[in-house]
């Protein structure tokens, strides 16, 4: 406690936090060093931290309004195509990657520095305050926001002894003066505050560490298919900056069966999904035992420090393609992309690079429960389960362009109209088991049946545990700091002119005055005769509204 504060009792409780840096500076003119110090003090003040927190919130808002590359890159492309003038400007401001933007990082790094710079000196200061004695009573207790006085026949020593006893019982820290008692409590409020700030720091660190050391990736697994956790198997893989691919846990997963159930009752909810279950078997290590697991939404598998989630599912129709020479050029299941969840109408392509003399490709639509929509003379799907699986196809032949080395999407055919030409009369609708003879002797395609696939997300985030701990700590801290106030009480007892003892009580609370003060006064007076004519109450009692 500095001397300056001791004199200025009116605000000393509030100032304890800021005093650490404040007492050292302020002498002489502002050289460059002075400015630096000034800037540092501004940055590390509680108010700046609060403003920065507001700015993080404000900065995240455009991220919720505009499409984001990290979540929906196709929507960003769409937006850019629609807004030719505005789009590029927004892009220049990183508004499509808000949460990875330099300005967003700047704000939270500043917040980070501000928190660290604020909390460390404050913690030191509080540690000292907790161990030093409560400040002695100011001269005029009646000037304090809460005060009371009365006269009593007991002598001063008795009253002070009672006050000490009373305050100790109420878990105040008590110090004695010549004719007075000083007491303080509510240190927990500041501890809560410090905990909150430290926990926020911990949270930011945990999030950053998790993102740097972890990884996330997606795979597609068809019934009967298997996956081993190595880079080659991933369709998409995003490592953290410090991730070491040699540390991928060597687990493997096999999809045995996928089951989905849907609402069958006619009505508005018909076709709504009820449950999906991917029945898998997995091994922690290549030589480990195989264990079964029911993978579902909300029921991920934890294995080797990673977690495996079901992201989605779809149909993978099976085909056999024979080429013009009569050889089997392709046989297998091909994952299709669902266009719609309620009916699972899906689309996909089959590419047959091994077909001779020319390569073949098929563009297809798949309906799990095909029915004819007579009005529009179309085929539609009535239900998401495969009750009447049907595909329509369009045939192309020529060069698939797979040798060019440019990677291709497995869901799209490239080069239509250039290297690949549509086959005349090459369209057909096939039910399960049916075969289509491609005109011109180019071969045939048979729709053998349907399998299902699941798309899985696999990730490893070592920061999730610490982040949760930090979040819980932050909340506990913030609640304590909002509810516990630091408060001081002084009691002075001196002999009056009439020989009776004059007792003065003063209270100082940061924030609202508490009822506790009135309880203390009532308790101190309890031993006196009730009709004490000199009893007077001044200043703020509990019913008073002043909040200083």
């Amino acid at each position, binding site marked *: 406690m500095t001397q300056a504060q001791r004199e200025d009792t009116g605000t000393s409780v509030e100032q304890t936090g800021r005093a650490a840096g404040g007492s050292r500076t302020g002498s002489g003119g502002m050289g460059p060093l002075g400015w630096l110090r000034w800037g540092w003090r501004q940055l590390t003040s509680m108010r700046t931290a609060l403003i920065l927190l507001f700015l993080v919130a404000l900065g995240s808002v455009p991220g919720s309004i505009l499409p984001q590359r990290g*979540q929906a890159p196709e929507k960003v492309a769409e937006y850019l195509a629609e807004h030719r003038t505005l789009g590029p400007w927004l892009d220049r401001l990183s508004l499509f990657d808000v949460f990875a933007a330099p300005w967003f990082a700047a704000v939270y790094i500043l917040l980070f520095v501000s928190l660290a710079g604020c909390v460390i000196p404050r913690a030191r200061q509080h540690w000292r305050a907790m161990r030093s004695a409560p400040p002695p009573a100011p001269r005029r207790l009646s000037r304090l926001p809460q005060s009371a006085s009365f006269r009593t026949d007991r002598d001063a020593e008795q009253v002070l002894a009672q006050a000490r006893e009373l305050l100790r019982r109420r878990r105040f820290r008590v110090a004695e003066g010549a004719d007075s008692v000083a007491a303080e409590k509510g240190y927990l409020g500041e501890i809560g505050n410090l905990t909150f700030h430290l926990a926020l720091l911990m949270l930011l660190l945990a999030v950053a560490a998790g993102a740097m050391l972890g990884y996330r990736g997606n795979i597609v697994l068809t019934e009967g298919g298997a996956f081993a956790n190595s880079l080659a198997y991933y369709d998409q893989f995003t490592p953290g900056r410090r991730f070491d691919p040699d540390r991928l846990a060597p687990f493997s997963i096999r999809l045995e069966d996928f089951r989905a159930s849907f609402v069958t009752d006619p009505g508005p*909810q018909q076709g709504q999904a009820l449950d999906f279950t991917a029945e898998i078997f997995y091994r922690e290590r290549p030589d480990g035992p195989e264990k079964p697991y029911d993978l579902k939404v*909300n029921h*991920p598998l934890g294995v080797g420090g990673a977690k495996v989630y079901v992201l989605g599912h779809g149909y993978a129709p099976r085909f056999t393609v024979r080429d013009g020479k009569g050889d089997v050029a392709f046989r297998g299941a091909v994952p299709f992309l669902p266009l719609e969840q309620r009916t699972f109408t899906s689309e996909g392509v089959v590419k047959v690079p091994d077909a001779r003399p020319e390569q073949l490709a098929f563009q297809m639509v798949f309906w799990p429960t095909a029915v004819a929509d007579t009005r529009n003379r179309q085929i539609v799907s009535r239900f998401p389960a495969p009750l009447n699986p049907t595909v329509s196809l369009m045939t192309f032949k020529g060069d698939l362009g797979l040798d060019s080395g440019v990677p291709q999407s497995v869901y799209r055919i490239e080069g239509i109209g250039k290297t690949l030409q549509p086959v005349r009369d090459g369209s057909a609708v096939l039910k399960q088991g049916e075969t289509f003879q491609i005109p011109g002797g180019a071969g045939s395609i048979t729709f053998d049946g349907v399998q299902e696939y699941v798309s899985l997300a696999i990730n490893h985030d070592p920061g999730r545990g610490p982040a949760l701990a930090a979040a819980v700590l932050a*909340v506990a801290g913030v609640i304590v700091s909002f509810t516990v106030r630091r408060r001081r009480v002084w009691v002075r007892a001196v002999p009056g002119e009439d020989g009776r003892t004059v007792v003065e009580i003063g209270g100082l609370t940061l924030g609202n005055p508490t009822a506790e003060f009135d309880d203390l006064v*009532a308790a101190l007076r309890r031993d006196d005769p009730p009709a004490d004519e000199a009893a007077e109450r001044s200043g703020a*009692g509990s*019913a008073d509204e002043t909040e200083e």
Partner: protein
Amino acid sequence: MADSDLANLSDQLALGAVLLYVVAMVGYALDLGFGRRRARAEAERAEPVEALVGAGGGGVAEAPPAEASAASAEEEGAERVERDWGRFAILINLLGWGAHLGMLVTRGLAAERWPWGNMYEFLSAIAFAAVTAYLVVLARYKARFLGAFVMVAAVLALGVATIWLYTPVGPLVPALKSYWIAIHVTAAIVATGAFTVGGAATILYLVQSRREERGASGGALDMLPGAQTLDRLAYKVTVFSFPIWTFAIIAGAIWADEAWGRYWGWDPKEVWSFVTWVVYAGYLHARATAGWKGRRAAVISLVAFAALLFNFFGVNYLFSGLHSYAG
């Protein structure tokens, strides 16, 4: 009872709750509009203040100001009428609350799950939480003056739910099949309901403090307690809701880790619940430590409430996110 009967009963109870709330709203309005003179209101004003402070550790009871006991016989007659309107409103309000509770329970029984799986159910439950929060405040702090305003909010919410968001009883989509719905969504509902009551008190505080500053008097607003009391009530309710809201967000993050493979991904719902959290934290901070007080702090709390509402209506209907049960 068959599920469809239960579902029908639930719909009828919803209707009953709305009607009862409308009647209660009128009763509360009459209670505010008739009777008490300024002096009476003044006398009653001391009461909630005591109750508010008393919650912190047994306040000292004060005798009512002298002028209160000087009411004439004529005034007493007027007061009896007015008091009866208040009692009537509370009674009807309680009946409406019972119907509302019945609506949620029968809905849950009919669907065989927690009755907050779609927007209709969710909004109905928020309205229920708001009315419950008001009844608690009524019992603890004698805050009857809030009744009319909370009834308006409850009627609006239930009305919007039944007219525009109605969804027949049905099963949950797989994404919501988790015990976390009981934890995360319940917390979000309770917090939102309580924030609504805090918001009503804050608006009244702003109106009243402006009036007090201008020294205006007369009209129904005389029946409201003083600005300071309203401010404290708003603060207390918000201090109560804030940790619950925080808990809802953390539970949401744990659930998101379980369901989507990441605990925080800046999904629009996540962004807006974070914004709401920060702004409420700013309000509480301004109130708890020195600095921003009174009307400026109250405005922050209304901004937070607006963010909360936007999170519900705006985010669910304008943006597509993973929280896409709104459609």
